[in-house]
């Protein structure tokens, strides 16, 4: 015999025993369908739980990331905030972002490339004898067009001069055109807001609104210069929307803005901020943390079900060993060595577990597909192949761990006693 054959033959032997046992085990499972499914219930549930959890989180993550993309990954929001411990001594109006801060913050934050303040209020708007109540009227800077990526359909965008001169000009969106019954190109018409006439200079496109901004159907919007807005209502709440020069500057930008505001507001070291800074990156991290916890939760449920399922497998394998004692005796009589008997019963346990795992996988995947069909924003729900492979590997390992004891029992049987077993 050549050396290759000497190495290959035992290997082929083991492989063949394993393969034949897999088929035998599949036959056994098919013959005892109910029993097998009941036995595998824990495994099925465990794998199904993991697959469903991972798929669900994957879908949510896809959705959240897409939303963030809509919002813009380079954006940062800053607004005044009264921390819990100062609520008794400080009013919200004191925490408001001031005009000075708005005007000077860019000089101290080089990582921020552009900025627009935004303050919005709901006011009634009149046009040609018609009124719409509670229209969102937002004060902006010309930079808003770039930062929010809102371009003009008709007319012109705001310019610096509109701001500087506090002109009574406004931009409307399509919903406002429709609700007020304006011309398709509304430029040149006037609307009345808070008793003042505003010249419509352009029609601005409506962007799909993120659910984070109260999303849903588009509604009437009117934009006026920020300074004009301040004039109409000096106490309106201001949020600074900033665009970062690059997304990886988020931490720098945050530090610069914080340093500027703390210095300007004379906040002592150790005292809390009287403002909030929100960056998408952070939100993504927050979400990832939540997702991680949820995954751990799913994994915990899966681990418990796999453990319980494993005990079920062990139980059924012990039953199988005692049911088939004579068969084991026969196999030994015709030359099965103890390790081979061990291998056979292990392979059987693993087969049982993996079949259960595959059923669980099918159920989990089916659930995800149903979810994708039923909930449109879950369209990204899917399970990565690595998780599927991992789940199958873990069920296989469960088979090995819990099949070991029955298999050892079978391997240790004395052939004479086994053959006499009734």
């Amino acid at each position: 015999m050549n050396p290759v054959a000497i190495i290959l033959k035992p290997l082929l032997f083991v492989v063949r025993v394993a393969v034949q046992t897999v088929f035998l085990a599949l036959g056994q499972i098919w013959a005892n369908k109910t029993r097998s499914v009941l036995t595998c219930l824990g495994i099925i549930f465990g794998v199904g739980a993991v697959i469903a959890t991972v798929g669900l989180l994957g879908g949510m993550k896809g959705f959240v990331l897409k939303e963030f993309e809509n919002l813009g990954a380079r954006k940062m929001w800053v607004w005044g905030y009264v921390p819990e411990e100062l609520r008794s001594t400080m009013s919200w109006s004191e925490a408001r972002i001031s005009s000075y801060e708005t005007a000077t913050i860019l000089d101290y934050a080089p990582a921020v490339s552009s900025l627009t303040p935004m303050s919005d209020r709901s006011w009634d708007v009149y046009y040609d004898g018609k009124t719409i109540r509670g229209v969102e009227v937002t004060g902006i800077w010309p930079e808003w067009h770039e930062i929010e990526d809102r371009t003009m359909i008709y007319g012109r965008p705001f310019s610096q001069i509109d701001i500087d001169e506090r002109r009574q000009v406004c931009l409307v969106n399509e919903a406002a055109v429709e609700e007020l019954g304006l011309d398709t190109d509304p430029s040149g018409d006037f609307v009345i807001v808070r008793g003042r006439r505003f010249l419509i200079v352009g029609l601005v496109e409506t962007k799909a609104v993120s659910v984070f901004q109260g999303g849903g159907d588009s509604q009437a919007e009117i934009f006026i210069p920020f300074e004009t807005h301040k004039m109409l209502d000096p106490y309106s709440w201001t949020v600074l929307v900033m665009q970062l020069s690059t997304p990886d500057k988020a931490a720098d930008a945050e530090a610069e803005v914080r340093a500027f505001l703390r210095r300007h507001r004379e906040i002592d070291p150790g005292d809390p901020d009287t403002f909030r800074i929100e960056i998408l990156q952070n939100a993504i991290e927050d979400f990832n943390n939540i997702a991680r916890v949820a995954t751990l939760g799913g994994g915990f449920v899966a681990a418990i079900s796999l453990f319980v399922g494993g005990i079920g497998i062990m139980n059924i394998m012990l039953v199988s060993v005692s049911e088939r004692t004579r068969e084991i005796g026969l196999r030994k009589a015709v030359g099965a060595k103890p390790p081979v008997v061990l291998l056979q019963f292990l392979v059987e346990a693993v087969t049982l577990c993996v079949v259960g795992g595959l059923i669980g996988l099918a159920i989990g995947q089916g659930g995800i597909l149903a979810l994708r069909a039923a909930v449109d924003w879950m369209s990204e729900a899917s399970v990565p192949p690595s998780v599927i492979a991992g789940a199958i590997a873990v069920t296989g390992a469960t088979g090995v761990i819990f099949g070991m004891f029955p298999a050892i029992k079978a391997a240790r049987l004395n052939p004479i006693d086994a053959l006499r077993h009734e």
Partner: protein
Amino acid sequence: MPVIEITDLHKVYKVGEERVHALRGVDLAIERNEFVAIMGASGSGKSTLMNILGCLDKPTKGVYLLNDTPTHKIGMSALAQVRNEEIGFIFQSFELLNRASALKNVMLPMLYSASRLFTARKRARRALERVGLADRMGHRPNQLSGGQRQRVAVARALVNDPAILLADEPTGNLDSTTTTEIIQLFKELHDTGQTIIIVTHEEDVAGHAQRIVRLMDGKVISDHPTDEDPVHRDWLRTMAEGHTTHFDTAPSGDPGEQPGEPVNVISKTLENQASTAPAANGHANGHANGHAAGEVTPKPSPEQEGATS
């Protein structure tokens, strides 16, 4: 050179605190192509001898050379290989796998043999053809008659070309017609050169062997060619005289006699058989339907003997 050579074989079991001396110095040599029947009552030690011959068990003391291999010296794993390659087992209750076809059943021993990887199916086919089941290969045991099942078992025993075919009460679960059929098969195999050892209670089954070895109390008490075996001759004579049972005519022996004198020993054996086989007339266990005047052999009781026999 004998295929089996046993010298001063002892086997002692421990059952709880008690020590059971099952074999007390057995000497036996079986030549190639012999057809030997081993007979003895329950407790005579023939099952123990059978287990040791089949390498399922190891002797406490003594020498067992199988094909010149000293099997009393090797480990359990090596014994498994000996069983696989040198021994073909045939059991009273066939021991077939019910969910596998005849062919798969016959292929079973080769599942455990690394050296017959690629020829298993071919060999199994040939073995089934040899026992006359060429047209039943795809059938499962429950689709086969008792005789056919035992033929499958014989094919399985033969498939690895064993040095010895070891049959433990192979006709115990068969009616007389099928018994004849299986015995005929054994004779054919013997004619082709197969060494066969058969353990049986049945005098008429043993009658087909060349040689009868009788055991009692863990010792060989007689070892003769079949036509010279006094008990068998006695049984044949009884049959010829048409007696219903040969126990009536068996000479009554003194239980105190030492097993040196053949006649007394034999009568003691017969008594032993009669007392240990309560269904002696054969009707009680339902196997007797086909028996005519031959209803004289004490049939084995269906339950197998205990480990200490």
